[in-house]
């Protein structure tokens, strides 16, 4: 056995191209379906666990998937904003806990997720350092964001510039990092969290500036008893500090300011059914059940995967034929060697083992490479579901 193995290894080593071709074919045949199943199972687990942890998402009518993916996985989707009053109305139901979510901006290409502070408790999120975002301008980083950007508590992070040439759009806002969340292996790791009001500073609905009595007279264009018209060159604050935080205000009713949707956590199934029916029957908004939505999504994915599985099966058959052909040709090429070994004293079983060993070595290399490739693919792609 060991002699045949040694000779088989030497053959494989000194016929690298042949071994490599067979091994690559086997690696692809083994690796592709394993990688597809691993990644798909991982995505399914991740999507399901998050979907099931947030029972209902309420938002504007439109694509159910866009709403759910925006609220759950912080994907920037074309979701029509709703007013804060929707949250207030839902929150009045004593049998549910409602959390507003506003997703529209980014900071260094990471989504800024503005949520009510209950979100952290309901999702079981805990700060690894610092605290939750309680004040205007506070930001809490997901674990992956903090690690990737190399920033932590006490540092600052700017929101990304949206419109470089549109002066009516607020400039980037300097956010104070007051906390970093523990790793959760979920979309939360890849987000920058702020309070809802902070997101309104980013939309321009909240702003802060000097008191009218403190404005440099050169910037005053007109003044009456009730109003002061100032030059557009007077900059608004682009950083919220202890000194200026109380100057921030909304011009108008905060109930009319925009949010993306409302996450709803009913106390029980009955409350779940009632609130869902109530919202869907009102007609203005929709309440979607993320768990069911993910189920529907994977039904489609698995139907597509059946085609993929058939292709893999076909590929497997082609690989078996190819490997058989290569083995047959190799055996014919080795006829002199095999005859010499037989004449010297090798048994038939030894010769069969030797020929098989060539296949076994290629198979072992192929399977090892295929499985390594599959697990490497999983490692590379496992977090991509939150970022792609």
């Amino acid at each position, binding site marked *: 056995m060991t*002699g045949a193995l040694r000779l088989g290894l030497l053959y494989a080593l000194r016929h690298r191209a042949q071994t490599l071709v067979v091994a690559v074919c086997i690696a692809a045949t083994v690796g592709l379906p394993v990688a597809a199943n691993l990644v798909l199972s991982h995505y399914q687990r991740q999507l399901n666990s998050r979907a099931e942890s947030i029972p209902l998402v309420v938002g504007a009518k439109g694509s159910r998937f866009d709403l759910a993916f925006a609220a759950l996985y912080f994907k920037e989707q074309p979701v029509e904003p709703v007013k804060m009053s929707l949250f207030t109305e839902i929150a009045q139901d004593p049998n549910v806990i409602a959390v507003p979510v506003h997703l529209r901006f980014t900071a260094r290409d990471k989504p800024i997720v503005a949520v009510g502070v209950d979100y952290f408790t309901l999702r079981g999120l805990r700060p690894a350092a610092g605290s939750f975002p309680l004040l205007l301008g506070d930001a809490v980083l997901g674990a992956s964001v903090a690690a990737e950007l190399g920033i932590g508590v006490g540092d600052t992070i700017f929101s990304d510039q949206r419109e470089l040439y549109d002066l009516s759009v607020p400039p980037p806002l300097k956010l104070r990092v007051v906390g970093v969340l523990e790793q959760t292996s979920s979309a939360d790791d890849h987000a920058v969290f702020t309070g809802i009001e902070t997101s309104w500073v980013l939309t321009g609905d909240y702003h802060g500036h000097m008191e009218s009595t403190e404005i440099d007279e050169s910037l005053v264009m007109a003044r009456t008893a009730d109003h002061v018209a100032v030059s557009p060159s007077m900059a608004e604050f682009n950083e919220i500090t202890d000194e200026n935080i109380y100057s921030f205000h909304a011009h108008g009713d905060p109930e009319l300011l925009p949010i993306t949707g409302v996450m709803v956590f009913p106390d029980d199934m009955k409350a779940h059914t009632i609130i869902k029916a109530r919202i869907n029957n009102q007609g203005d908004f929709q309440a979607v059940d993320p768990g069911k939505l993910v189920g529907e999504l994977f039904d489609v994915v698995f139907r597509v995967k059946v085609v993929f599985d058939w292709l893999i099966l076909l590929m497997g058959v082609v690989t078996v034929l190819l490997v058989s052909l290569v083995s047959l040709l190799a055996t014919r090429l080795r006829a002199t060697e095999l005859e010499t070994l037989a004449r010297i004293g*090798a048994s038939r079983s030894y010769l069969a083992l030797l020929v098989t060993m060539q296949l076994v070595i290629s198979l072992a290399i192929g399977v090892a490479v295929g499985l390594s490739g599959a697990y490497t693919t999983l490692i590379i792609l496992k977090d991509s579901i939150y970022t792609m």
Partner: protein
Amino acid sequence: MSDHAISLRQIEFTHANLAQEGAPFRLRIDELDIDAGSVVACIGPSGSGKSTMLDLISGIHAPAAGQLTVAGHAMHALDAEARRSVRLKEIGLVFQNLALVEYLTAYENILLTTFIDSTSVGDLKKRAQELAETLEIAHLLKRRPNRLSQGERQRVAICRALVTSPKVLLCDEPTGNLDPERSARTIDLLLSAGSASGAAVVMATHDHTLLDRFDKVVDMNQLLGVST
């Protein structure tokens, strides 16, 4: 038990696959004894049975009748597996085309038997080194056959045949493709190396010009007799 290294008595062998002109190939050897240390040439035209006789002695074929003793083993009474074991341990073989394994180095070719039976690898490695030095190919051991000259390849084949210190060395037309000068050198090398190891050497050959180097000559056309 025979005292000779090789002893054939009333050997009969028939092989349907070796048919000539529609009739099965038949070989009959009444009596042939070869002593240890002696060198014997086996001559005759193609198809006369030289290679078949070597195959009988090496145990690749079994005689249909008669008594065949090799290195003290009654080959006629052994099954194929036992004959294979005798061949592996007691018999060295040099083939017409040398039959070196192209993807192995010269050293690995010499030690080819250790890939089949690895029970005494240590001793064989030492013996391989000694033989390589004796046959002046010690500096070529890491080369593969395609980087060796014909003469060097022959020496590697001879080393491989002798590495197990066989009691019998069988050579099947090892000079078949060589010019006369190289043939003479090869036969001298084989005979001296075989004799030095104390093995009985039997060589099938077409080359009648070199027969004076042998102790005995077996003419396959005179199967019932042995000319000396």
